[in-house]
């Protein structure tokens, strides 16, 4: 897969190494932490951010494609946005609307963005609110489509067409995503457009051939994304969707490997990804890769429901540290537990 960029393994590795330090305090490294039976941090992303280049938005600064203004522009009251992060949308919306009335310039745009975004979730959901949000996004885009508020407004407008409007219009969203990818390189939020494009395009196909052709066409985005988050989501969606739709297995596996290398921040997403890579590699007779990812899985997720099966797989594949894996006989043939009480 020539179009897939080289994975950037530094962040995830650092993340796992540091995890033991930060979350386990005196535990010297991650393997020791795991040996103690500690699960992988769900806040691994926090460590990612602490690592060099781990600041998701600071990373974009180095990309050079987005104006510095876009990255440091005032984006309304952070407190209001914080309300929205914990689903207090109504309050956030009211505050944004009030703040927008008394602000100007960039601050006004930032508040309008907040007002528009939160309108999408004001309860009850009404067509009127969706239309008002749409009008706000269009107003922000016509003001300046390339500053941070403009880029965010374009993403929200696309999402509005894709998931909020009735009826949904993914093709309209697609057009916006394409434009956003051209203008928003280096902006983590804007670069998520690539992963959205993957879903729209791959799910629009109706045959094995058209699916693989669409995947080839999309591959170019993988080389152009500047943020880790943008690349990770793009690779994940490519790999998992190709796999779901029974596309090219090798291509799917390569994308998943690339996504894994970027580091998935949640166990719920990382664990199945590792197993899927290993299972695909096994199918493709790439036993070394299968062993590698099965081993990674057992080292990270000892207490997962799949770990016993995976350890057996590793034993079958002849991995040196496959661990204990006894074949099944009678499921409950072990001596029954002692009577618990009298």
């Amino acid at each position, binding site marked *: 897969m020539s179009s897939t960029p080289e994975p950037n393994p530094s962040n995830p590795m650092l993340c796992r190494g540091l995890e033991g330090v930060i979350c386990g305090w005196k535990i010297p490294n991650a393997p020791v932490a795991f040996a103690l039976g500690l699960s992988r941090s769900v806040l691994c992303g926090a460590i990612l951010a602490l690592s060099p280049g781990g600041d998701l938005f600071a990373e974009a600064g180095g990309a050079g494609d987005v104006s510095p203004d876009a990255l440091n522009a005032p984006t309304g009251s952070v407190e209001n946005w914080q309300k929205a992060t914990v*689903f207090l949308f109504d309050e956030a919306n009211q505050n944004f609307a009030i703040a927008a009335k008394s602000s100007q310039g960039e601050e006004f745009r930032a508040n309008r963005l907040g007002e528009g975004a939160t309108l999408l*979730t004001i*309860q*009850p*959901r*009404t*067509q009127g609110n969706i239309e008002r949000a749409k009008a706000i996004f269009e107003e922000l885009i016509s003001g300046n489509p390339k500053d941070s508020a403009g880029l965010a407004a374009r993403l929200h407008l696309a999402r509005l067409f894709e998931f909020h409007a009735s009826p949904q219009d993914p093709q309209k969203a697609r057009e916006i995503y394409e434009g956003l990818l051209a203008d928003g390189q280096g902006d983590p939020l804007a670069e998520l457009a690539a992963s959205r494009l993957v879903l729209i395009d791959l799910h629009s196909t109706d045959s094995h051939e058209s699916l693989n052709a669409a995947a080839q066409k999309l591959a170019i985005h993988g080389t152009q994304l500047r943020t880790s988050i943008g690349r990770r989501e793009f690779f994940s969606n490519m790999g998992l969707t190709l796999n779901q739709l029974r596309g090219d297995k090798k291509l799917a596996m390569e994308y998943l490997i690339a996504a894994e290398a970027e580091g998935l921040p949640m166990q719920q997403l990382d664990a199945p990804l590792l197993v899927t890579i290993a299972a695909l590699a096994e199918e493709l007779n790439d036993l070394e890769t299968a062993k590698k990812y099965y081993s990674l899985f057992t080292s990270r997720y000892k207490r997962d429901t799949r770990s016993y099966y995976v350890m057996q797989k590793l034993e079958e594949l002849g991995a040196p540290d496959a661990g204990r894996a006894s074949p099944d006989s009678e499921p409950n043939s072990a001596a029954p537990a002692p009577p618990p009480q009298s």
Partner: protein
Amino acid sequence: MSLPISPKKALLEWRLYLFIVPSLLAVGLFSYFPAASAIYHSFFRWSGGDVKEFIGLGNFAAILKDHVFWNSFITIGILVVANVFKMIPSIFLAVLIHRLTSDRWQYWYRVLVVLPMIVPGLVTLFIWKFFFDPNFGVLNQVLDATGLKTLLVHIDGIFHWGIFQEGIPIAWLGEPSLIVPSLIIWGFPWIGAVGVLIFLAGLQSIGTEVYEAADLDGVTPFQKFLHIELPLIMTQVRLMFVLMIIGTLQGYGLQFLLLGEEGGPGGKGMVPGLWMFNRAFLAGEFGYACALGLFLFVFILILTMINNKYVRVDK
């Protein structure tokens, strides 16, 4: 009928109106607000949480295509008809008590009728649930002890129902064909304390001269009932009839407790109220459940209006 008073006079002691404010507030808060909220939410796609979406008449349009809801009216229809007959024992008991010549015995019978009202309704339901238990329940034990079970098995053999089998306890609430009969049997001997008291009140308003005239004419006790008592308590019968219809249409506690939220095997015990509950708490379609409730409200209202308009009592 109260005498009309002038508005000026009505407003003279305006402070007195303040006394009804607490009651009005309580009724508004606990009766009208939930009802208004249900009407409001019936126009939304709402799953009970904070997320809701206005869909206009979408829920009502869905009701028209909801075959489970419409089928539930068949069950409720059968239950309403059965409940009409289940009113008869109360009427008879009221007449019997009314005809007691001893005031003291009348009093004690009234007390005996009212006494079961002390037992909470839920306890009665649980007791009946136990009655229906296939293995240790009273109903099956009585059928076994009296030999009625053998008779039922014999009849089953003739008609090939496949319900009653020797050696297998009757699953009253586990066999679809027995669910509606079980719901009808429930409450045997169907004497409702409130019904008896209401009928008794009606009977006691009948003047003794009517009975004396009947006696002079040589009217038999049954004729007295048919031509004097029943016509003269028709107001009460009609009242109970309306209350029964409303109660049967709205109620689902019995079905829920005995059969669960799915309406039991074959969904035979599904009634509109239970379907409303099912949609709200199992499917998470609270908005739709509100629309079902509203539909039911309108349906009951129409039935009551028809009853008031056409089921007249000639005095």
